[in-house]
């Protein structure tokens, strides 16, 4: 896939309009072909910030009815409404678009006492999306939402009236699909719970990543490799409690030859990590931006076969496929821009969640120490 | 023991040559002087009997051997060693720091009537051969006294010159000291096809045209070659108060009783590993080895002579013959292979598990393995019955005794 990706996070948590990210992604329109675009915004539903917000696309009313009755079984629906849209000439064949603010019912929590609320949400999402009954959950996190569809990203943004939302973190994607035909659910970002991801690339390891995830209960229904990355993050971060930086080392591990040169404890750690998570390694050209609402994390594949630039200006941290996208929305000084190296992620973090501002984004290693028992 | 001065070698025998080669291998510059009676340098003595050879072919080494090796030559006879000098016939003194006596042997002469006659010769030098050649013109009959190594070569030489040859031998078979009865008979039969062989007899009177034997028989002879053998040439050693026995007495470094004086070759008596005694072993390889040992020690690199044993290879009118060690010993176990039809006879004598002597007649292939086994004292008890089998070879030599030349440490 071709595609452009972009992301902005305000590390102080200041919210800003979705217009900026539309401008950024629009600048790179040559990287897209109008077969899909989308956005994820964090901090956009402050009034319902404790409820799970499902954005669902429906083929028809019947599937909406079925799905809503299913939702009602597991959840208390705090609020439901159509997602506001405006008419945009280029956007055609729109499905039904609804959002729901949900709380897991107590009896369901009791019934699935071994599961967390997130697990229950994930199970529901998998069930709806796996049923292939004309309904598709495109986002399911808290205080966040994904807006996507078939068309250029800029048009999609306009369609969803994103300028009316304000959030502290936005990621966006404009698509040039090659592997899967354009449909609304197949556009980026992909989301599960609070995770959202945009991806420029093609995962040649998808086959095994998919089978690996299936062992842990994920259903990959979109026939798109990017979905696998999202779930891998969910598995590693949420279920296996790995920090983002280590999850990155699972997806893009150092070469064995590099591991061998590490000091004993570090070597042992990475060796173990790679041996256990071999099936989670993602291979193939990729530039990825992932967010969980607390940080925005950008990285490329082990050979850096797809572009990614980063910039920092004031409290804002930017990621994009091309520098022009960032320049478009923020006048950058020399030294603001940097190019993440192979194996080194670029990270922007909400400062109130992690006390110290992480300056070490340029060198992914270094800031960790390893020991063994 | 490092030599700083001048090395003098008396004689230009194989021992001398091998000493020079050894010294030069180790030191290019040490001055070496050779004092020799031989005007013709340097022919191989065993080749003097080959009538069809050119002089060139008889050279043992390159014609310019001495010049190339930076060796000074003095033609003349050394008479005595005095102090640190060799005194020549012409009274000239040649100073040395180390001296090697390599004067070889001299023919045994017999006390027979007429032995001083003009028609009586010995055959040990090229001069002898040349003289005989000259004398033989228009002559018809020859008598060779002695049927050993030199006797056979003399007979072949005379045959080559077109004479009828009679060989008179005191003992009952040719090569009497080294052959047993059977091999003696095969060799005698072979000789008889080319010459008249008179055994158990001796010449008592040499006339101009005939010899009278002990039993009174008269055989025609225009020329007589006395080929009984050689004994160590002890002339100079004795005069110079160097200790002698049957040969010049030397230690394992080839040193004589006199300081800085060495001796090597047929003039010495050296360790016989089979008897453990020191005896003269007047054979070529021993002379060569002794010369090399002496040369090495003279050049300052200590080397010991490990001893040798009697062995010889001779071609008797086309029939190859090799004898090794105590080939006529009767005290050991005899292992024999004999094929009358093809005139092949092989015998080995095994004593205390070791081969002490062997005879090969007709088929001498790989006889050297036996030489090696005798030298190394290899116990053959386990395979002694196979030593003359068709497959016998070096493979029978137990691995632990095999030479390093064969089995390198790691392949």
């Amino acid at each position: 896939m071709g595609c452009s990706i972009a992301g902005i996070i305000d590390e102080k948590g200041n919210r800003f309009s979705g217009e900026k990210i539309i401008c950024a992604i629009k600048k790179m329109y040559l990287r897209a072909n109008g077969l899909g675009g989308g956005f994820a915004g964090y901090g956009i539903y402050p009034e319902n910030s404790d409820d799970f917000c499902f954005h669902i696309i429906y083929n028809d009313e019947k599937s909406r009815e079925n799905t809503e009755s299913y939702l009602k079984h597991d959840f208390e629906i705090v609020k439901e409404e159509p997602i506001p849209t405006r008419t945009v000439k280029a956007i055609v064949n729109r499905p039904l678009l609804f959002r729901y603010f949900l709380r897991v019912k107590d009896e369901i929590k009791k019934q699935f006492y071994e599961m967390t609320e997130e697990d229950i949400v994930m199970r529901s999402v998998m069930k709806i999306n796996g049923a292939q009954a004309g309904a598709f959950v495109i986002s399911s996190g808290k205080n966040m939402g994904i807006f996507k569809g078939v068309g250029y990203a800029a048009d999609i943004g306009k369609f969803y009236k994103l300028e009316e939302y304000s959030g502290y973190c936005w990621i966006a994607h404009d698509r040039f699909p090659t592997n899967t035909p354009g449909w609304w659910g197949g556009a980026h970002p992909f989301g599960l719970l609070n995770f959202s991801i945009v991806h420029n690339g093609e995962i040649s390891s998808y086959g095994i990543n998919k089978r690996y995830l299936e062992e842990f209960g994920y259903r990959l229904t979109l026939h798109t490799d990017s979905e696998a990355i999202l779930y891998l993050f969910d598995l590693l971060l949420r279920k296996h409690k790995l920090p983002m930086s280590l999850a990155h080392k699972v997806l893009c591990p150092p070469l064995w030859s590099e591991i061998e040169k590490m000091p004993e404890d570090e070597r042992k750690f990475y060796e173990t990590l790679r041996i256990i998570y071999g099936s989670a390694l993602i291979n193939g050209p990729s530039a990825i931006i992932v967010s969980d609402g607390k940080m925005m994390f950008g990285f490329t594949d082990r050979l850096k076969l797809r572009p990614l630039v980063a910039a920092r200006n004031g409290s804002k941290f930017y990621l994009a496929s091309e520098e022009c996208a960032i320049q478009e929305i923020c006048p950058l000084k020399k030294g603001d821009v940097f190019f993440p190296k192979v194996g080194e992620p670029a990270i922007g973090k909400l400062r109130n969640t992690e006390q110290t501002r992480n300056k070490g984004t340029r060198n992914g290693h270094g800031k960790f120490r390893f020991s063994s028992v | 023991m490092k030599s700083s001065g001048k090395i003098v070698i008396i004689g230009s025998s194989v021992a001398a040559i091998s000493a020079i080669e050894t010294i030069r291998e180790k030191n290019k510059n040490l001055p070496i002087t050779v004092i020799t009676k031989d005007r013709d340098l340097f022919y191989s003595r065993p080749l003097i009997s080959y009538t069809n050879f050119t002089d060139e072919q008889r050279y043992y080494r390159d014609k310019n051997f001495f010049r190339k090796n930076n060796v000074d030559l003095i033609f003349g006879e050394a008479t005595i060693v005095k102090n640190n000098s060799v005194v020549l016939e012409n009274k000239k003194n040649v100073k040395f720091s180390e001296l090697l006596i390599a004067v070889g042997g001299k023919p045994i002469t017999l006390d027979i009537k007429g032995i001083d006659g003009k028609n009586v010769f010995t055959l040990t030098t090229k001069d002898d051969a040349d003289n005989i050649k000259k004398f033989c013109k228009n002559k018809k009959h020859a008598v060779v006294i002695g049927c050993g190594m030199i006797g056979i070569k003399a007979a072949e030489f005379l045959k080559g010159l077109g004479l009828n040859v009679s060989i008179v031998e005191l003992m009952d078979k040719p090569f009497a000291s080294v052959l047993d009865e059977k091999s003696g008979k095969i060799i005698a039969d072979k000789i008889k096809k080319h010459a008249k062989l008179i055994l158990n007899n001796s010449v008592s009177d040499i006339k101009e045209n005939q010899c009278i034997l002990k039993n009174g028989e008269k055989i025609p002879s225009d020329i007589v070659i006395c080929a009984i053998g050689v004994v160590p040439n002890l002339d100079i050693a004795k005069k110079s108060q160097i200790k002698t026995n049957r040969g010049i007495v030397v230690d394992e470094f080839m040193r004589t009783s006199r300081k800085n004086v060495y001796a090597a070759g047929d003039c010495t008596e050296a360790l016989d590993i089979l008897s453990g005694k020191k005896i003269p072993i007047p054979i070529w390889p021993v002379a060569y080895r002794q010369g090399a040992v002496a040369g090495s020690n003279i050049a300052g690199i200590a080397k010991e002579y490990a001893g040798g044993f009697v062995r010889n290879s001779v071609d008797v009118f086309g029939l190859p013959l090799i004898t090794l060690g105590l080939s006529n010993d009767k005290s050991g176990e005899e292992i024999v292979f004999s094929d009358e039809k093809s005139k092949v006879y092989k015998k080995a004598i095994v004593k205390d598990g070791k081969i002490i002597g062997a005879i090969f007649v007709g088929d001498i292939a790989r006889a050297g393995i036996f030489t090696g086994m005798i030298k190394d004292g290899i116990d053959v008890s386990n395979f002694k019955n196979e030593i003359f089998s068709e497959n016998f070879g070096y493979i029978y030599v137990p691995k632990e005794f095999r030479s390093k030349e064969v089995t390198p440490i790691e392949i």
Partner: protein
Amino acid sequence: MESSASVLCKSSVSVQCIRKANMKKSLLFPDFTVTRDPDKCIQCEVCVRQCAFDAHSFDKEANKIETDNSKCVSCLRCATMCPTGAITVSEHQQNIKKNKNWTEKQLKELYKQSETGGILLTGMGTDKDYKIIWDHILLDAAQVTNPSIDPLREPMELRTYLGAKPDRIEFRVQSSEFRGQNKKLRTTNYELQTKLPPQLKLETPILFSAMSYGAISLNTMRALARAADECGIFYNTGEGGLPKELYKYGKNTIVQVASGRFGVDSDYLDVAAAVEIKVGQGAKPGIGGHLPGEKVTEEISQTRMIPTGTDALSPAPHHDIYSIEDLSQLIYSIKEATGYKKPLSVKVAAVHNIAAIASGIVRAGADIVAIDGLRGGTGAAPTRIRDNVGIPIELAISAVDSRLREEGIRNRASIIAAGGFRNSADVVKAIALGADAVYIGTAALVAMGCHLCQKCYTGKCNWGIATQDPYLVKRLNPEIAARRLVNLIKAWSHEIKEIMGGMGINAVESLRGNRLRLRGFDLHENELKILDIKPAGESM
């Protein structure tokens, strides 16, 4: 060399045997015709000396070399060694009336059996004309949207770890702050809590499969051990014990514990890198082994720990394993004996219920499941068993890998696939289907000189491989053979890298179980279903 019962071997199948069996006239005719070009033959007798089956002889009186076609097994030793290339061996042309049902091979087997009354014996893997599924699986490559990778320019990782893996990593995080020059710095310390179960580290996902001392010569074992050492992989002792001389290759050795328990003692288990319980073998599932007493030489008796000259009988089952819980007991006995320091493998033949069996093995505590398919080789097996029992390894890998994933226990054991791997493409396909690594046996033997004459059970291997004859074992110089093996492993590894690079994959982890990079061509729907691959032409 190991056959199923002593009565078999004595009455097995050579013309000479048949003569001995008091048949006046054998109805058999030769399998091969040896042709000698008289213009090229120099009568050097190299062929005479090289043929252990005595097919060539020199007639001194006639001053002529003669050949007895009936003795030729087409091992091609003579043709290879002939310095003038004067010898060719071809199929014997006999005009047996063409019959698709009653083929020449069938007829010959009937003649043999009617003349000997014995079970037919054979060696190596089945030569029966079964469909080779590998040849109906096609590999993917990257084009345009995804750059292929040049293995000569970019790193390409084949390293493979075999053994049980935990589902997730466990570690403790400790953050500490300290003062830097101007500001506070924070470091995070990860303390690894996971204790990884023992692993076999392979530099390339290939191992040499089990071949026992007795079935193969010591020189052959030496070559396998040296090559494994040099390639950073493993060889397998089979069930014949481990000669003391090879202990130095222990870190590259997988030792087998089979039903006969030959050569098993604490030193044997201690010296190895891993232990494999052999339950079955692809060439003869359900059948034991038999090494006739005459082949139990001094050295073999030492290694197998049985008296010289006694028959070495491997029972068909392990008599202490009549059920899965018995296997578990043996697995844990061995783990106890080796201090839980070595991975424990269980080797089974791919039979109909292989997925469930493999699952049981994993749950019984094995760290590795080795599965030997229909085409697995052998030193000796009854022909009927070899040619008719078991299922193809392709289907077995897929069934087992799928099953273990369904049960969520795929991480708990590695899968080694075995049985007729012919080239690196087969290996890539096996890994993409879900195997962690493959065992190669026949390919390794061929690399060393085997010409697949299938006469291993006679003990007269002219290539010095499947023999103990002191005249024949020398023919295999382990130095040369090891070099050839190393070349083979290198060549295959290069090819695997090339194929992976073409797919845009630079680590074998991303190939393993990646069935999406495979397509079936000319495969039945059911086969596609079991292989879990799409038909060629269908995209992602």
